[in-house]
């Protein structure tokens, strides 16, 4: 578990592996870097190994193999945790404690001096909007309140990095915004945040970089721009499809394609136009332009996989010549959700891969 010190990295992991009893391989050689002062999103379907990875960092789970460092210290070193905050998934606080007592208890375990704890607790309760409930027993808290308190306890030791596992679980929209603000504020103060969430929209709003885990492996990692670069495209939206639109569109685009190969999938049969009946499903047509760009049409929108505006001009001309009414034209960057779906898709079938960690075969186990 020794690595060269990397002061600019809050987390530097290499080849993390975890095989649970029963030969369940939760992690299969995960490498990941989280810089200081950034918000990092850890994404993945259920059972991808996200929580296991976070728990390894927090010494809750022992790795089968792990190289790397947390805040410059080897993974597994307890002392480092004094500078780390953690909000576990499905957090459960003792119901007999009040909010104030809970924060004091957690801070004491995190070695926060007793003189600082009271003031810090007041600040944190204020930060998560729980001051009015500080003297109430946790047993009377709602799920969202417990989650807010969980966030507060994770920050009691003024950590250099905080790991949040599903922080907005059960929290109302106002609370979610508050939590996002807390994360951004931490980032502004040069602290790091690692967030593990299923709410891709929220992750997209605050994260600088993301890593998508699938079946215990990193399927994609980088900044949002880096990850979405390959998927950028132009989308040409046309007037709601009529019986003739697909055919017109086909004709328009065909002029731009090589003659010897069909430009966009086979044209619809004239006797059964796909848009004749309301609600009918139009098959997606896919093909390639002469300039090499891939294109697809679903009956309403033509998508051209390029960020170059030149070929788009010709297409617009061709479409307009054939009387197709263009409603809008816009450059599009794939959403995090698109990325996620693409990352978790099985390359062979195109469908989402099976949920859960993989079972190691006997050969692999050896």
């Amino acid at each position, binding site marked *: 578990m020794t690595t060269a010190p990397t002061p600019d990295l809050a987390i530097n992991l290499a080849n993390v592996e975890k095989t*649970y009893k029963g030969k369940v391989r939760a992690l299969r050689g995960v490498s990941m870097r989280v810089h200081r002062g950034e918000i990092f999103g850890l994404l993945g379907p259920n059972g991808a190994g996200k929580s296991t990875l976070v*728990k390894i960092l*927090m*010494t*809750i*789970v*022992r790795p089968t193999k792990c190289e790397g460092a947390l805040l410059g210290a080897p993974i597994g070193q*307890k*002392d*480092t*945790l*004094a500078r*780390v905050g*953690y909000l*576990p*998934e*499905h*957090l*459960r*606080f*003792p*119901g*007999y*404690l009040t909010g104030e*007592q809970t924060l*004091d*208890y*957690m801070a*004491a*375990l*995190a*070695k926060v*001096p*007793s003189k600082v704890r009271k003031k810090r607790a007041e600040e944190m309760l204020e930060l998560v909007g729980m001051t009015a409930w500080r003297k109430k027993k946790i047993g009377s808290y709602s799920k969202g309140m417990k989650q807010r308190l*969980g966030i507060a*306890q994770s920050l009691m030791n003024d950590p250099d990095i905080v790991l949040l596992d599903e922080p907005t679980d059960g929290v109302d929209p106002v609370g979610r915004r508050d939590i996002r603000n807390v994360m951004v504020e931490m980032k502004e103060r040069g602290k790091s945040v690692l967030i593990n969430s299923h709410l891709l929209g929220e992750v997209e709003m605050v994260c600088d970089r993301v890593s998508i885990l699938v079946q215990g492996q990193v399927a994609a990692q980088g900044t949002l721009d880096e990850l979405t670069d390959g998927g950028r495209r132009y989308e040409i939206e046309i007037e709601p499809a009529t019986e003739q639109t697909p055919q017109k569109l086909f004709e328009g685009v065909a002029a731009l394609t090589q003659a010897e190969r069909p430009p966009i999938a086979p044209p619809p049969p004239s006797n059964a136009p796909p848009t004749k009946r309301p609600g009918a499903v139009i098959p997606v047509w896919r093909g390639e332009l002469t300039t090499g760009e891939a294109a697809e049409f679903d009956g309403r929108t033509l998508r051209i996989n390029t960020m170059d505006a030149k070929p788009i001009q010709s297409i617009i001309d061709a479409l307009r010549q054939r009387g197709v009414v263009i409603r809008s034209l816009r450059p599009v960057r794939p959403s995090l959700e698109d990325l996620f779906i693409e990352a978790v898709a099985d390359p062979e079938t195109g469908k989402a891969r099976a949920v859960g960690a993989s079972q190691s075969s006997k050969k692999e186990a050896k």
Partner: protein
Amino acid sequence: MQTIALLTDSFRMMVARRMFWVTLGINVLVVLVYGSIGTNDEGLTMLFGLFDIGIPMFANDSPVYDSLMQGIFSGMLVPVWLAWIATILALISTTSVFPDFQEEGAIDVVLSKPISRWKIFFVKYLGSLVFVLLQVAIFCIGVFLVVGMRVGDWNWTILAGIPIVLLFYSYLYSFNTLIGVFTRSSIAALLFTILFWFMLFLVNSAENTLNVFRSQSEISVQQFDQRIAAAETRLERTERPQSLLELGTTSFNDPESLRRRIDSLQEQRASEQKTYEAFSRWHGAIRTSLAVLPKTRETIGLLDRWVRSDLPYTLTEIFEGDAQREFDGVAPSTPGPVTSQIEEDALDLDETEEPISRMEQLESNDQLHREVTDRVQEDYDNRSPWFVIGTSLGFEAVILLIGGWIFVRRDY
């Protein structure tokens, strides 16, 4: 700081449980009932003088009353109330501590702090003993005050009940912790602990029973030895020439019948000796096996041993009438050990041929019973408290190390 935080949390957890207050309420009630036993000019009174029992030997704070009060504490309240009923209540209250603590979401947040798992495990374990510590401390201090105020005997030994009962409970709770950590189930932990406790009870009882049988056989062998020795003396006396003076005082026995009698006694002695050896063997084996197990009965018995040593009468002496006989100025029913009596009886060998009356038989049985009880008690009293507590704590340490190892190595 971390230790104090964990202990404070344990204390808060305990006082938040309803069972804590129920047990405390019963404890206070028991102390109140105990403290309501008083004396007046006529004897004992109950419920602060509401009922007169009227046994004169207890009248006016007599030493017998002092012995009774402290004997009830060490011989009845501690072994029955604290070591049985209150222990079950405490187990019910604390059995869920480790299973609940290990639930997802609860343990993660604690393990993510800069504190070692061994420390969490041991402090959590000690914290759970707070429940018993508080209950027993309140109980023993209550009894100490009652005895001090009622009898005027401020016997600090009573307070030894606090560590003794705590030790006793810790033996059981260590096992409860092991099962709780291993299975993460409160029900399984409770059931297996009660089974373990029952097993300890059986082993302890078997040891005690075999000790009684062994002592009985030992006494029996000694009786035969004395009878044989007496018969041989008689034979020797019969066979040698006697003076005229002796002729007048000695019974005439047929030497042949005396020899037959000696042979018969030796056969019976040999048989009893075999029985004694068998019991000794079994008792030794079970005592050896008990050496590695926690000595629940003996640990609790230590308190009675210490308290009893300061008192003029034991509870047995009060209940069996010795104190009453002494109060009445009558000689004790048992002038001495049954073996020395046999020696005297054996000298009059002729009497053995005579039928023994029912009353004599009962008295003889009673004497035998008391001697056996005395010997068994002496055997227990001779066992070193350090051995009793040390070996029990050794067992507890091993169990806790196994439990701690599971706790430390587990992924949560």
